[in-house]
């Protein structure tokens, strides 16, 4: 097996060009899926027999919560690769993930509160699922704060990577919190090994939103990654061509 693909992925000019080329291939399908998912979720799906139209919050809450965990996992893996192989591009990926993950973790918490009030009778409860998700937001903010506090990019990369890798223990805690402890929050109805427990007309828009958000993440990541790669390059001649264009 040859490792050329791995070395090419570590090459900043190659990554910069590849990221620019790939962005529309993720952005446009994301836009179509999210538009379709919104239409399906708000208009086509029938009201829930218990929650009425209030259940429609699921189409923004579940994808936001999925993003909060998936983006963190991506960030931790990239940070680990950066630490182990001293790969600048991997650190650039990790740094690009944090603001995306933080914003969707915030959205997951707010939409969850707005769903909790009518259904559970409270916006907030120090419940295992809710609390661990709040910890996730603080992990993202801590990661970004740590990076902002260190002027030297290489030191910021290494220090923040350690935080990202250590913090990943929170991801399974969030996911299994509803099974391990008594929680107000319901158990997973889609992200589970067995068949989803939703009617198909409700499920399809949700799957479209989940996939759409995931592709959106990749598109935003690719845009941010180009900036992060540029800021890690000092004198390389390829930069001149890129920034003068």
């Amino acid at each position, binding site marked *: 097996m040859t490792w050329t693909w791995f070395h090419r992925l570590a090459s900043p000019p190659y990554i910069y060009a590849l990221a620019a080329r790939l962005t529309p291939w993720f952005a446009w399908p994301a836009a179509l899926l999210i538009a379709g998912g919104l239409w399906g979720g708000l208009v086509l799906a029938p009201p829930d027999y218990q929650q*009425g139209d209030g259940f429609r919050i699921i189409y923004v809450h579940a994808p936001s919560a999925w993003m909060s965990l998936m983006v963190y996992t991506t960030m931790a893996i990239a940070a680990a690769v950066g630490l182990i192989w001293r790969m600048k591009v991997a650190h650039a990926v990790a740094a690009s993930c944090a603001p995306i993950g933080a914003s969707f973790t915030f959205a997951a918490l707010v939409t969850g509160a707005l769903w909790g*009030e009518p259904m559970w009778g409270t916006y907030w409860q120090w419940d295992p699922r809710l609390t661990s998700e709040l910890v996730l937001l603080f992990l993202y903010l801590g990661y970004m704060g740590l990076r902002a506090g260190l002027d030297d990019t290489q030191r910021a990369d290494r220090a923040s990577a350690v935080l990202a890798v250590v913090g990943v223990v929170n991801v399974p805690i969030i996911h299994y919190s509803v099974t391990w402890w008594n929680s107000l929050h319901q158990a997973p109805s889609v992200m589970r090994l067995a068949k989803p427990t939703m009617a198909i007309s409700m499920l399809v828009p949700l799957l479209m939103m989940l996939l759409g958000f995931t592709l959106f993440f990749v598109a935003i990541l690719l845009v941010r990654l180009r900036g992060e790669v*540029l800021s890690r*390059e000092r004198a390389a001649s390829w*930069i001149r061509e*890129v*920034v003068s264009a």
Partner: protein
Amino acid sequence: MSQFLDMGGYAAFVWPSYAVTLAAIVLNIVWARRSLARSREEARRRLAMRAEER
């Protein structure tokens, strides 16, 4: 239409949820583009400084 906007009485919870999430989407687009533009500007400035030193 007004029935749709009413969301079966859950309008006060459904619409703010969608607003917050769509705001997250839009802000991510704006922030990402701004961050790339900033990095390009900084790289351009670095190159200009280097050219002056020579």
